[in-house]
């Protein structure tokens, strides 16, 4: 190293950092990337998503939500309008879960038992930041 020109040394240093960042990103992608698929793809599709980390959007089926306090397990069903998908989630119900029209599941799908094991649950409620129609809101007020 001592005999290299300073600019070369700087260049080598820059290269090391760039390669290190690149490596971190590459290994991150290969370890933590998941597919975003629809419920129909998952339940009725040909593709095998066994062992893949998945992100699945779906609508909550109203009265399917059951919470088992002993096991701390939430069970519910989501649908994309065509097919249904049973889900289990080992945590408590997030806020706004009951009426959330749309949830985003992240986790793994067990095809044999036909159950989605969610690790993360995001609720997307249409009235969260942009209010819906006034009729809808007044209806809710009367509840």
């Amino acid at each position, binding site marked *: 190293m001592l005999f290299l020109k*300073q*600019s070369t*040394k*700087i260049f080598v*240093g*820059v290269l090391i*950092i*760039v390669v290190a*960042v690149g490596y*971190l*990103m590459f*290994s*991150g*992608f290969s*370890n*933590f*990337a*998941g*597919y*975003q*698929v629809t419920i129909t793809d998952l339940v009725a599709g040909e593709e095998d998503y066994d062992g893949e*980390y998945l*992100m699945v*959007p779906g609508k909550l089926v109203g009265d399917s939500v059951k*919470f088992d*306090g*002993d096991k*701390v397990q939430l069970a519910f069903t989501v649908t994309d309008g065509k097919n249904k998908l049973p889900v289990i989630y080992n*945590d*408590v*119900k*997030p*806020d*706004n*879960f*009951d*009426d959330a029209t749309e949830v*985003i599941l*992240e986790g793994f799908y067990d095809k044999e038992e036909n159950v989605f094991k969610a690790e*993360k649950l*995001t609720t*997307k*409620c*249409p*009235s*969260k*930041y*942009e*209010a819906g*129609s*006034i*009729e809808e*809101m*007044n209806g*809710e*007020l009367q*509840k």
Partner: protein
Amino acid sequence: MADLGYLSLILALTISIYTIIAFVIAIKTGNRKLKNSAKGGVAAICLLVTTASFILIYHLVASDFSIAYVAQYTSTDLPLFYKFSAFWAGNSGSLLLWSWVLAIYTAIITFSKKHEQDGKLPYVSAILTFNNLFFLFVMLFFANPFIKSVQKFGYVPAEGSGLNPMLQNPGMVFHPLTLYLGYVGFAVPFAFAITALILKKVDDSWIKVTRRWTVIAWMFLSLGNLYGAQWAYVELGWGGFWAWDPVENASFIPWLTGTAFLHSVMIQERKDMLKIWNMALIIVTFLSTIFGTFLTRSGVLQSVHSFASNPGLGTVFLIFMSFVALVSLYLLIDRINLLKQGNQFESYLSKESSFLVNNLLLVGAAFATFWGTIFPLISEAVRGVRVTVSVPFFNQVNGPILLAMVFVMGICPLIAWQRSSLKNLRNNFMWPLLIAAVIGVVLYFYLPGRQLYGAVAFAVCAFVILTIVQEFYRGTVVRHRMTGEGYLTALGRLTVRNRRRYGGYIVHLGIVFIVLAVIGSYGYKLEVTKQVKPGETITIGDYTLTYNGLMEKREGANAVVYAEMPVVKGGKHIGTITPEKVFYKNWQQPGTEVAIRGTLAEDLYVILATWEWDEKTQSVTSATFKVNVNPLMSWMWIGGYLLVLGTIFAVWPGKGSRLGPKYTQ
């Protein structure tokens, strides 16, 4: 009144067009009258947008539900404070806030005495006005804040739908406001940079002029992110403060590139280097502030922050971003030969090169975050499937990069300019390194889990804190010896007379504190979720909580279900903690009120998750609690305050705020 607001916006848009044209012609012809007329235009825009904003605020506070925006985000029983903050709760109102802040900034720049004799002014004002023209256009054609309820719903509702309870939190009032002050602030150095490129005057004068703007914008952006984190922590009730949501990332990216810019411009000021890099950084930073706004409003990515998706709005933002990117890129490439002149790196062991490392790490983290955020879109375009990356990706990639950056933060300020010697290194770093290493080893064995990563991370933080303390100490001792002042006086005068430098150290200290909280809460968090019957206890770490049943009370219009839980720590009763669930009168979902008992060492964080209701006995049989112990969390907020303090200290005008002389050979 609402018509007046709408009219103000139309007028502001029209005058913006006039102002830009007038500035351009004034530049071409040197017509002073026209230039003054254009400056008047800037003032008029500021006045008009201010008027529009006040009108919207007036309607919000007066609960005038004939305006759709008021009906959508407020109700009569909302506290005044939140009626006011509903101004930026929705899409169109937050665009108005953006435009307002930008109009005020533009007017300040245009009428500042400092820039009067400077030929750059018309360019800068025109660029900023063009930027505002875009926001006014978007508001008028896609998101009018003054649209009538009759137009939108067909009738005027008797009562508004109220503000989402989750947004009724002081954190949520300040989070958007500070974030926008920061976002918009970066438009100023951007406008000066583009002006420098257009005029081919690429010396460091644009950097000197905009330094305060950049630093203050950076401070607001930091605060905005911290308020967001605090809101998530106390309000969302999942025990964390940062989820790598696309929109959080979108505010983190300009923070990273902005931080890089803030540092690399020092190298240009001192050594006339890194000119292309600085230009590129400010362009990228400005673009990423617009990108953040684009993400929240276009609905292209799934995010908890999304406003209702509006594809038309997304397209307009995309066109604007592409236009800015193309013009900036063209100017940058066209002027590249001018920018290439300057000094070269002389040694790999120097302040310059350590700043280069800091910049590469920050930009690396920004790039990784950006790539991870937009990856679903890219993979869909290329392969037809949406591939997403989740929280572990961002943690694994950014964790080491940012830790390395913290380490460099200890080195940068102390290493010599131009060329450092081994003696200099030993002199500055030997003791901090040795002590930090000892601390690391001790923590490795002492802390639970024997985590190497955590111990190393703490050691790095200790190293940085020690180098900062050493700097204050040495400076004071030298001053004491030279002037004979007492130690405290010497310390005071030393820092006040070198505000830039010592303010910077205070900010660094704040950042290290924030990092300590991140390491503590990510690496050493305890978590227990348990269903309990009355009389049963929950044990977590040293804490034991007893559940004695649920109670009910009324708070205004809302019903609150809560548990009063005695807390015992290490055999001693230390108080009660009261997690709540609130049922709102005009909001369908109940909200969780987290109970937090915070000390400097750790937060006890309790959530009442749910309970079982027995129909036969009409009583609650058991309740489920989620309990966390989050170590060091308080340091995040302490660090935030230090950061603000250090920034204000560093930019405080007057003697002592200037930089030392340029380094010359």
